[in-house]
């Protein structure tokens, strides 16, 4: 069913955000996070330079522009019966676990969209922002993904309810 879970983990392996779209017990979650994090962190240790030009889709406006990501390594890892698509932004790893038939590049775009949205809302988002405003991050994610399917891809639409709520609060 599309996306199974979304994780944000820092370089030391501490989970900063975990959103699961299927029920797993606490031990299962911890075990899963441990395994995946180990796999992804191990792969990235070999990266020497981390120079990037990014490619993104601006879907809502219908304009197509492109940046290319020049990673040293592939961003996909196979784990049990699903794939993990991950990308590293500064000190944080964004990992999305998806079904086998999901389009990996689209998920990479989704991760980038998520980061940009958070950036727009928090202004130069960093790990601390996510830590202190966890529920806002959750909220953003809930706007974007429902039931494991991506439903909203426009930053404006995602942020407007959140901004409204902040104003009312």
């Amino acid at each position, binding site marked *: *069913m*599309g996306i199974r879970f979304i994780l944000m983990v820092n370089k030391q392996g*501490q*989970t*900063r*955000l*975990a959103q699961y*779209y299927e*029920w797993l017990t*606490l031990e299962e*979650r911890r075990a899963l996070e441990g395994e995946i994090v180990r796999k992804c962190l191990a*792969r990235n240790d*070999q990266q020497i330079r981390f120079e990037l030009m990014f490619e993104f*889709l601006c*879907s*809502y406006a*219908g304009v*197509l*522009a*492109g940046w*290319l*990501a020049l*990673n*040293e*390594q*592939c*961003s*996909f*890892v196979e784990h049990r*019966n699903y794939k993990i698509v991950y990308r590293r932004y500064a000190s944080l790893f964004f990992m999305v676990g998806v*079904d*086998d*038939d999901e*389009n*990996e*590049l*689209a998920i*990479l*775009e989704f991760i980038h969209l998520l980061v940009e949205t958070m950036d727009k809302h928090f202004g130069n988002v960093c790990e601390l922002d996510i*830590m*202190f405003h*966890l*529920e806002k991050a*959750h*909220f953003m994610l*809930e706007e974007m993904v*429902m*039931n494991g*399917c*991506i*439903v*909203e*891809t*426009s930053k404006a*639409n995602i942020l407007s*309810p959140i901004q*409204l*709520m902040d104003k*009312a*609060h």
Partner: protein
Amino acid sequence: MDNLFQRSLEDLIKGFRLQLLGESSFISRALEEIRREVKATDLSTKSTALHKLSYLAAIHGVDMSWAAFHALEVVSSSRFHHKRIGYQAITQSFHDQTSVLLLITNQLRKDLNSVNEYEVSLALECLSRIGTRDLARDLSPEVFTLLGSSKSFVRKKATGVVLRVFDKYPDAVKVCFKRLVENLETSDPQILSAVVGVFCELASKDPTSCLPLAPEFFKILVDSRNNWVLIKLLKIFSKLASVEPRLGRKVAEPICEHMKRTVAKSLVFECVRTVVSSLSDHEAAVELAVAKIREFLVEDDPNLKYLGLHALSIAAPKHLWAVLENKEAVVKALSDEDPNVKLEALHLLMAMVTEDNVSEISRILMNYALKSDPLFCNEIIISVLSVCSRNAYEIIVDFDWYVSLLGEMARIPHCQRGEEIEHQLIDIGMRVRDARPQLVRVSWALLIDPALLGNMFLHPILSAASWVSGEYVEFSKNPYELVEALVQPRTDLLPPYIRAIYIHSVFKVLVFCLGSYFSAQESSSGSSSTVYESILNLVNVIEIGVWPLSGAYDVEVQERAKNVLGFIGMAKQDIAKNVNLQDNDAEACRVTAFMEDMFSEELGPISANAQEKVCVPDGLELEENLGDLEEICGKFLKPVESDSVSCTDKISFSVSKLRIRDQQEASSSSTSLPAKASSSLLAEHRKRHGMYYLTSEKNDPDSNGTPKDYPPANDLASEILLDPLDPKRKAKHRKSRPVVVKLDEGGESRITTSQAKTKQESVTDDESLSRAIQSALLVNKKGKEREKCEGNSNLVVQEEETSRIEKPQNSEKKKKKKKKKNGERTSGKHRSRRRSEVASSSEQVEIPDLLL
């Protein structure tokens, strides 16, 4: 008053960060605080406490299920802030077993009906994450209403929830489906995106039921510019086209258009994937797709390279030409830095292997294996081994080359696949007669190399090498050197069971040499002194080498060493120059001849179905209950005591032997009653079923290894061997390929491919869901012709049994099948009529004409 001193979440986090050590005590202190605070009556205090608890649960894995009821209380507050916190807690911690789940229904219903769209969205999101069957059933009317709401925000979310509701409660399909389909035609891109997402999931579960909606999808495919929507549509079409091939023709055009026009790589990849997997019959589309794949392969980005290779491997089975065109790119990818890319390239290369290029490709791969890290090296080795051994070595024409390749693999430094190589060496030895000389040569090279003995991964290969050398010693050029290699002192590094194989091979070589010596002696009048000296040398070398092992700790090694030494002791007398071999005392000669005879019997592969081929002899009863035998045999089958054992009390597992022994034991039964009659259960069992137990005593130690005690097995084996071997010999290949003995289904592939991944889906749920969708769609069609307000007396044309047949306990709670009007609530526990099952599978799903 409590509020002033309550720590907010921010304080908690700050405090946590300042804590350098003692994190768990900090957490437990915080937990205590929370437990106190959460019981307060003031909702603000409660909600802050719950907020903190959610944080701790999410990040530090603290269990928060005890706070379920408090979460409910918080949710019932009228302040939005509290509601949000409450819902967050609920979404995080509720699951199917939560006891207070029932209480949430009303709260959800209230919120779903609320005017404030944000409250509605909170409730919807909560439902989508924790929705159970009961919740889905009770709240589907509300969801239905919301699907038609005027606020697109709400509609979008409702669409998102629909999937979960359908999943848990298939009957809801009838209620909500129409609205869903209406939403498909909306111009609002948000909602469209959500709806297409839902259909994408539905289509993956059951394509046939979504087939009637194909025209709408087609329209969107052509018109839309939104890449996300297009990607989902492509997935839908890929599933639909595999079910309905005519659809492929129509769809290929717009897909190619998109492929050419778009810049977005993700869309290109999805198009390529769709074409290659479902539209593989349309040549033009496939060629365009392959061109795009080539572009991917030459990119620097490892992601794109990996995806290009992946798409190529999907295309490989039907379009091998595409793979061959890109051969250089694939080979280049083998040396890429990224492990995923390398693995995909390896698999692709394996798909390309045929008889002609197998040696070339293996050469390339061996070079890479020498250069790579251990993991990839072993991947290469195992894939080469598996491809070459498929179907009893179908691909190999030149076995001499293949055997030397196996030897080469053993010398690769990182090789860890000893068992597979061992298996193949022995397998080839048994099946391919003509390859045996080369096998012996390669084994000899492996055995004399002392360096290999130190590498424990190679020990299985060495054991195979020694077995082969012993078994096919007649092909070896220099048995003397072979024996020297087998008894060299460095073999101490081998584990005992392999050592035992070495000693046994030494034995076989000895027998062979002695046999030829004796026969040479018999035929020629006198023996030359050089021959005599060489055989004496051989015997001495063996004796010196094996003698230390006769005191070895391992019983197997010790036993075999003693066998060999005993045999040597006996043979030494007869090797002397002046012995007349026609003498009756020349025991050794006769024994040697017998041994040779035994060793010359070939071991061969046995088909798994061989036993079935042996026809049951007449008069043999296989099905009868053997209980009656107890009367006959009871006296003779006594429980075995370890101390009062005598040779005549052997309990044999062969019925024929039992009759023979009956007579033996009848004479001695009176004297051999056990001293103490054991009353343990085991003894009783042995008494009753003793004939099925294996012999409990060791054989006489001086039997010298001759397998006289087990003739039945050997006889049977030789029978089976002869039968399938003859008619199944493979015909000679035009390039004089050696004969490979291949039996029917004799060899399953031992190496399982790692690609077998299947999705687990609960079949019953899917069936019910698909039937529900099908019925809803057909009703849709017919409903468009007739008036909508129809009494449900006449109901749907297609009557169905829902999944309740499989779940009989829910048969009481069936809902009405069809709504009378929009907006009417159909909840409640009506007993609906019994529905008869119609073979819905035989009903052809109509395809709208415009698509044909």
